[in-house]
């Protein structure tokens, strides 16, 4: 099993999707174990691919920066009677970011599948759910191994289609169906850009092959404006899929789908497809610097926007959705300054802790059938395991040493400071602190304090082992995944240069992981400050005071004496942070969502409404239209000469 067989990875789940989609009624348990087994095989295979990659890497078969392209002709349409115009070849390509994506996608998919055995038990269409999950995995794996933009686009759309089916899984619920439609259409608007971008790239290079396009672009084959427009088109597709401003509106709504689906699609796989795409095309973006700057500033805007919105949202899953939007913004910021390494590293760690958080929220929803934080609270007593795991995920998200999020977020701040200067750095650092605040809020309101809704609390119970186990594995990864960046770990894995050496694309040098002490300490302090701030604001002051008195009277005095600081905090958060967040939320809902996204849909619809009245139903009017048509044609024809 080497890199040349990498096509097997998408093929296995694809076949299982077809079989189980049709015949899940014929096998015991509706075939869930078959699908899971298939994905487990894929996980093993993805490690074999990693080994092979790393083996040839070490043997010096290719130096860093080399590529590894295997092409096979799956569909070949060659109109080349006159000139071979439309040769469409399908090929796979393996390099560092492919290997990384394969590991992330297969592991998270497997974990989500196992978790779903518990979460989805007793649902109608249980077998269909697993089949589509498998189909989604296939499409996503196909996306990351394709070495050809056309195949990439095909899988890109297949991913969208599978996610449409998954988000709309509860299609009996009107909101779920609407959300599925919204997600689908919003991302499709971006996809129009992507397709146009692909065609533009092809027109220049005469090939869909990514490596050839990169060579062509680096050789200055495209004109500057042409390439800028093209890459912006491509980025529109990426922004649609990865929920970047102004396309971010679909992601929170997509939370209507089953929670494990959110963990898979909206944390670790589909939403990072845009990041992957931009990373894959980074050498071309390096030539089109204007487009790269757009990536940077869109990423920055989205990061800040998502974090602010996360502060004022009360649905546990929507908080996580905004958090994902924000974290994806972080990744695009890294890409915007040209650091594939930092972006992919954050993608890697984020996949684990964010899917862990989603699964944790699923566990809560499963137990209480509530997902509004104001009705939860105190769950730590009933669900100790979930609480522990969720807290680990939250700390990783907040970026606390030594959890995974710390390393990657730090890396992004570092490259941003080097690449874009102080202003953007400050904004992103503040966003990182905001992340800590809303994470703390979420944890406190859900698991700590007193239960706010007794019924939900009474209903709560710890989730079964089949759900806890995958969460525990993800939690483990959320703890250790960051270590791959460290040199000793890198060497142990066979890469002397750590993460930077693994994650690169051809023609684009990665860089070794650096740890800047100032930034590391600064980030940690601001994260901790954020957590403290969140604690002070959202854990009930009275209760805290009482408990503090029991623990230490001196400390209580201190607290009481410093009450004015509490007030200051209170004022800062109430008036400034939350006020700002509310304004942003208002803007997001009414301007971006209603006017921008829904408005354009309504505009199109209204145009159709106006136009249809030309169709009066009367023959003379129809004949008049024909007469005008032919007269205009004739007049213009004669007039042109």
């Amino acid at each position, binding site marked *: 099993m080497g890199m040349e067989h990498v096509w097997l990875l998408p093929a296995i789940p694809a076949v299982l999707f077809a079989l189980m989609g049709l015949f899940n009624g014929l096998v015991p348990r509706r075939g869930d174990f078959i699908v899971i087994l298939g994905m487990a095989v894929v996980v093993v295979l993805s490690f074999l691919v990693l080994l092979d990659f790393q083996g040839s890497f070490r043997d010096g078969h290719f130096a860093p920066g080399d590529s590894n392209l295997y092409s096979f002709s799956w569909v070949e349409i060659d109109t080349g009677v006159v000139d071979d115009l*439309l040769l469409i070849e399908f090929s796979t390509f393996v390099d560092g970011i492919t290997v990384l994506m394969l590991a992330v996608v297969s592991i998270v998919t497997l974990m989500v599948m196992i978790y779903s055995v518990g979460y989805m038990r007793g649902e109608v269409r249980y077998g269909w759910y697993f089949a589509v999950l498998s189909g989604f995995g296939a499409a996503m794996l196909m996306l990351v191994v394709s070495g050809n933009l056309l195949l990439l686009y095909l899988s890109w759309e297949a991913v969208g289609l599978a996610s449409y089916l998954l988000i709309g899984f509860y299609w009996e619920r009107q909101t779920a169906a609407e959300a599925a439609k919204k997600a689908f259409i919003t991302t499709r608007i971006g996809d129009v850009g992507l*397709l146009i971008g692909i*065609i533009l790239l092809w027109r220049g290079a005469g090939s869909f092959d990514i490596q050839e396009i990169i060579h062509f672009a680096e050789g200055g084959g495209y004109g500057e404006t042409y390439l800028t427009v093209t890459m912006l088109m491509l980025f529109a597709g990426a922004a649609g899929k990865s929920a970047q401003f102004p396309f971010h509106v679909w992601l929170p709504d997509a939370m209507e789908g089953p929670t494990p689906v959110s963990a898979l699609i909206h944390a670790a796989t589909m939403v990072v497809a845009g990041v992957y795409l931009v990373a894959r095309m980074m050498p071309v973006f390096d030539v089109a610097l204007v487009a790269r700057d757009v990536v940077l500033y869109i990423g920055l805007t989205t990061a800040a926007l998502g974090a602010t919105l996360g502060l004022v949202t009360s649905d546990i899953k929507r908080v996580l959705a905004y958090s994902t939007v924000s974290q994806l913004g972080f990744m695009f910021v890294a890409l915007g300054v040209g650091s594939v390494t930092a972006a992919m590293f954050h993608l890697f760690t984020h996949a684990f802790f964010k899917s862990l958080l989603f699964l944790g929220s699923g566990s809560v929803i499963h137990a209480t059938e509530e997902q509004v934080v104001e009705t939860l609270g105190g769950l730590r007593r009933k669900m100790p395991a979930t609480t522990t795991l969720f807290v680990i995920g939250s700390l990783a998200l907040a970026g606390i040493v030594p959890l995974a999020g710390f390393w990657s977020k730090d890396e992004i701040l570092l490259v941003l400071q080097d690449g874009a200067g102080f202003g953007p750095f400050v904004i992103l650092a503040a966003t990182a602190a905001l992340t800590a605040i809303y994470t703390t809020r979420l944890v406190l309101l859900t698991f700590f304090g007193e239960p706010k809704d007794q019924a939900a609390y009474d209903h709560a119970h710890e989730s079964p082992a089949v759900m806890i186990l995958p969460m525990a594995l993800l939690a483990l990864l959320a703890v250790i995944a960051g270590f791959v960046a460290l040199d000793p770990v890198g060497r142990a894995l066979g890469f002397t240069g750590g993460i930077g050496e693994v994650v690169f694309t051809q023609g684009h040098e990665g860089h070794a992981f650096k740890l800047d002490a100032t930034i590391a300490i600064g980030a940690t302090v601001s994260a901790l400050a954020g957590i403290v701030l969140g604690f002070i604001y959202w854990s009930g002051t009275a209760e805290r005071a009482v408990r503090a008195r029991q623990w230490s009277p001196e400390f209580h005095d201190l607290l009481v004496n410093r009450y004015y600081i509490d007030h200051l905090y209170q004022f800062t958060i109430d008036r400034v942070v939350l006020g700002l967040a509310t304004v942003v939320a208002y803007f997001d809902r009414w301007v971006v969502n209603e006017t921008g996204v829904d408005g354009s849909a309504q505009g199109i619809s209204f145009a159709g409404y106006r136009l249809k009245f030309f*169709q009066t139903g009367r023959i003379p009017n129809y004949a008049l239209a024909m007469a*005008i048509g032919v007269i205009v044609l004739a007049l213009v024809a004669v007039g042109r000469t």
Partner: protein
Amino acid sequence: MSDLNFEYGLLLPEFILVGSAAVVLMLDAFRADLRISRNLLPAITVLGALIAGVASLLYLDRDPTDFAQLIAVDHYTTFFRILFIATLVAIVLGSYEFVNRNITHQGEFYALLLASTIGAIYMAAARELLTAYISIELLSFSLYVGVSLAKNDTRSGEAGLKYVLLGGVASAMLLYGLSIIYGTTGSTTYEGIAAALEDGVVGTPAFLLGLAFLVGGLGFKASAVPFHMWTPDAYEGAPLPITAYISATSKAATFALMLALFGIALDAAKADWQWMLASLAVATMVVGNLIAIQQTNIKRLLAYSSIGQVGFMLMAITTVSDASGSALLLHLAGYLITNLAVFIAVIAFYNRTGSEEIEDFRGLAETQPYLALVITTALFSLSGMPLLAGFVTKFVLFQAAAEEGFLWLATVAVIMSTVSLYYYLKVIRQMYVAEPADGDSRWRLSPIAYLTTGVLFLGIFLVGLWATPIFEAADGASAMLFG
């Protein structure tokens, strides 16, 4: 004149079709006396069509030839013979239940379908203006009657009247254009016109006037905006199988004719007509797709959606070349399969519910999941979803247009494809989201409906995933015009 080839054997498939039509008519006339089952009529139609289809295959190995310089018999003709005969078979199989219930003159129904198929084939095969015109009228006249055949539906008569009167106006426009082209070039054969154009008729005011009328007349047959207005009304008023037939065969035949006419005869005058077709193409895709959003009747929705599709096909005629020719043929094949899948599924739905309103598709995923799946897949394919026929064929089409320097047109087409998804999803949403009406329980399809939709359903995937064989056939056919 004596060197003309009068080998009647070249027209064998059409003789078989005519013969079947005659047999069907006779049997229908004496049906009461002969006490035969009425399923015999569709059976004979299908049988005749199949034999004609096999007969068409006989010409695959022969060198391209022609009948009296009027009708070409080559791969291009064979391609369309197979395509139109397959369409006929699919429509007869998919609609015989409908016909049994809703059509009183069944013999005429099948005979007209057979006759119009001949017209469609000769539209593709014609290499001379008069032959082309007669073929157009053979097809159109059959459809005028076909549209008015639903005796129990007053909409049918109104639709027939609109179609026949406006069709007459369009024919007159077309003929006026043809007469001027004949007058300026002195020939009615495609080759003769092409030769005359080389000698410098291009760009004279008279010729341009002729072109404008020609484009207008053909634009009507193709339903290009602003000559499209009959389309939604005729689609809505016609009995469903005829609607399906207009949207499939009639459209494809018009484009087959246009490709040959503009590709062979008028190629030298490209600069004179390219902008006409390009502007019609833009208007057509924009207007068709936008009005479609507002529709509540499935036939009307499909009518506007097919107008939108016509815009995409006009793009291929605009950029006429070998590449866009094969792209257009591939697209036509994929479009016919997809469109027939939708229509036959809708016919099966109508047989059960008697409704054409999109609203009444609610809960179809519960009551008839198979049908819902077929419709969903086909609509996704129409909107150009990857893995399905619509993506591959549209992609090749758009790419060919972009290559010929019409990137802006291809861009509009991509955007309008996305708009089309919006109204297709409206139908899909009704089927999957809304609750079934009270008292609706699961129901079954007839075995033949299963078979027909099943084959078409697989066809959508076949073209989407493995387009190579069809593309090669299309390419070979297109090479006959441009090779």
